């Protein structure tokens, strides 16, 4: 039983991080109709900034409380980078065909990848002090790292907040209105440019949280963004691009399949995920949670 519980926790852990990345990607697409290929790099940016900040604090001999307080640093950095990118690079492209937007974000991917290498060098950064500080709890006969439970909690809280934000606040109404019909929203007095900026920043913030909370349990390495993006794509393809419920369901499916795959069919674990995505697309073209009419 305890082994099974650990598998469940691992699947949830994985799903949490994936939801944070894919949810942001999906939100951005839902509102702005832009597939941000550089989204994974913002996740990586979050991881690197947090790892760097915590590493600095540890060197300075800061107590554990400060280290925990520094966790959100990466998310804030990713949000800031997102805001700058939207204002300077994406805004000229809203009227151009979407192929150019893809190319633009691909260029950004290359640039961000190397900027991270330029700033933090080629070696992995880690922030294991935070991970170790929480120790582990016992599940049956086995020990399980407490920090992993924190990640799961953050994922659940983030999903709940996001839901409340989008369905229960005025900003959420404006966001959904812009997503459904940009021109009508604009005609009714919504400042679409501002909504775009906020949506993109929020999406990047979520990716940043993902990177920030994951980095104490695994190191920040070059290329983590590109790998994460492909998995996030699988999630949004399964759940439906532009749907947050879909991102949540997709993240859970991918999390469970991955956890099962690692122990049952390690060689084809990734291939199975891609094939699930392809099958979902064949059966329900717009994904599980999006009505096909759009």
């Amino acid at each position, binding site marked *: 039983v305890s082994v099974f519980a650990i598998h469940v926790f691992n699947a949830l852990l994985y799903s949490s991080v994936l939801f944070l990345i894919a949810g942001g990607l999906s939100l951005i697409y839902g509102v702005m109709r832009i597939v941000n290929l550089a989204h994974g790099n913002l996740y990586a940016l979050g991881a690197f900034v947090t790892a760097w900040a915590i590493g600095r604090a540890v060197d300075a001999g800061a107590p554990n409380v400060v280290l925990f307080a520094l966790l959100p640093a990466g998310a804030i950095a990713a949000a800031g980078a997102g805001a700058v990118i939207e204002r300077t690079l994406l805004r000229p492209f809203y009227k151009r065909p979407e192929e150019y937007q*893809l190319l633009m974000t691909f*260029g950004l991917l290359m640039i961000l*990848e190397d900027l991270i*290498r330029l700033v933090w060098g080629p070696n992995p950064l880690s922030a294991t002090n935070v991970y170790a500080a929480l120790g582990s709890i016992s599940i049956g006969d086995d020990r399980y790292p407490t920090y992993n439970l924190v990640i799961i909690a953050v994922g659940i809280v983030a999903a709940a907040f996001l839901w409340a934000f989008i369905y229960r606040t005025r900003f959420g109404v404006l966001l959904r209105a812009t997503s459904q019909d940009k021109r009508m929203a604009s005609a009714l007095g919504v400042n679409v440019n501002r909504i775009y900026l906020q949506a993109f920043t929020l999406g990047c913030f979520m990716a940043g949280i993902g990177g920030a909370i994951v980095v104490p349990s695994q190191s920040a390495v070059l290329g983590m963004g590109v790998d994460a993006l492909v998995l996030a794509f699988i999630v949004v*393809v399964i759940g439906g*691009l532009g749907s947050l419920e879909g991102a949540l369901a997709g993240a859970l499916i991918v999390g469970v399949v991955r956890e099962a795959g690692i122990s049952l069919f390690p060689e084809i674990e990734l291939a199975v995920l891609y094939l699930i995505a*392809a099958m979902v697309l064949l059966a329900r073209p717009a994904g599980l949670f999006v009505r096909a009419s759009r």
Partner: protein
Amino acid sequence: MSGFARVFQIRPLWRTLAWLVPVAALLIAAPYLFDPFQTLTLTYGLIAAIGALGFNLLLGYTGLLSFGHSAYFGAGTYTVAFLVKYLKIASMELLLAGSVLASAIVSVLFGYVCVRYTRIFFGILTLALSQVLWSLAFKFFWVTGGTDGLRVPTPTLLGAGPTDDKMEFLAYHYYYYVLVVFAVCVLIMWVVVHSPFGKALQAIRDNETRAEFIGIRIRRYRLIAFVISGVFTGLAGALWGPLNGLASPDILVWTFSGEIVFMTVLGGFTTFVGPIVGAVAFTYLKTYAVGFTVYWQLLLGTVLLVLVLALPTGITGAIQDATARLRRSV
């Protein structure tokens, strides 16, 4: 009036020959003019050009942006590696035939799924499927060599074995071999895009609904275009194998597909020669950027941003616009 028409029909031919003949002469004389390193880079460029040419049948002529062409390129390269390793085939002609067959099979399978979609979904789906191959190559290391990849030795060309000096063989014999394949590919692609089939693809690109109303079977045409495109890229992958000497999962990662997109846009996807110009230019750009700095991605990414912002029609598109403006002002 008829005089005008005749002039306009004849002048483009003259203009085409005016640059085609010198370029062809330069390509033929290249091994004698440049040092082996330059010739090898040019060989890489010509191979990339075959792939980009195939890719552009989808992007420029059918209006579908694939972000998964690494799959067909990789299928070509790995087929060569497998045939050499497991069947001990040394003849390049047989290797090419095998690669064409393999990339055709992969592109029929993937294309069948992908052509149901257009625009962004097409891009994401091609990307996701290409990563299936990547993960297989990555995980089945006892077959594919994993991240180490498989060695691809120098093959025999038209029955003639490799000479002792490998550099000389690649920069001379292999160069001409690639050049001939390249010329044949350009010719075939030229015929394809100027055939009724090619015109139908352009009709689908410009207006899907109208194309359907005049009786074009959209999905079938897209699938055929997809397969031709995949086979060209697979052929490029096959030629690339012996030149690079190694088939590794790097060429299956989706960012490699991004490079194929990059070179096509660099040259200009609105013209026939655009992808060729772009592929050669990109190869030189990347070779020198990699040699110049470890941050070559930063450099190329910036080039891409500037390109997309300032020159969306690429090198050839910009030249076309400039000459058109010049002619109007004269």
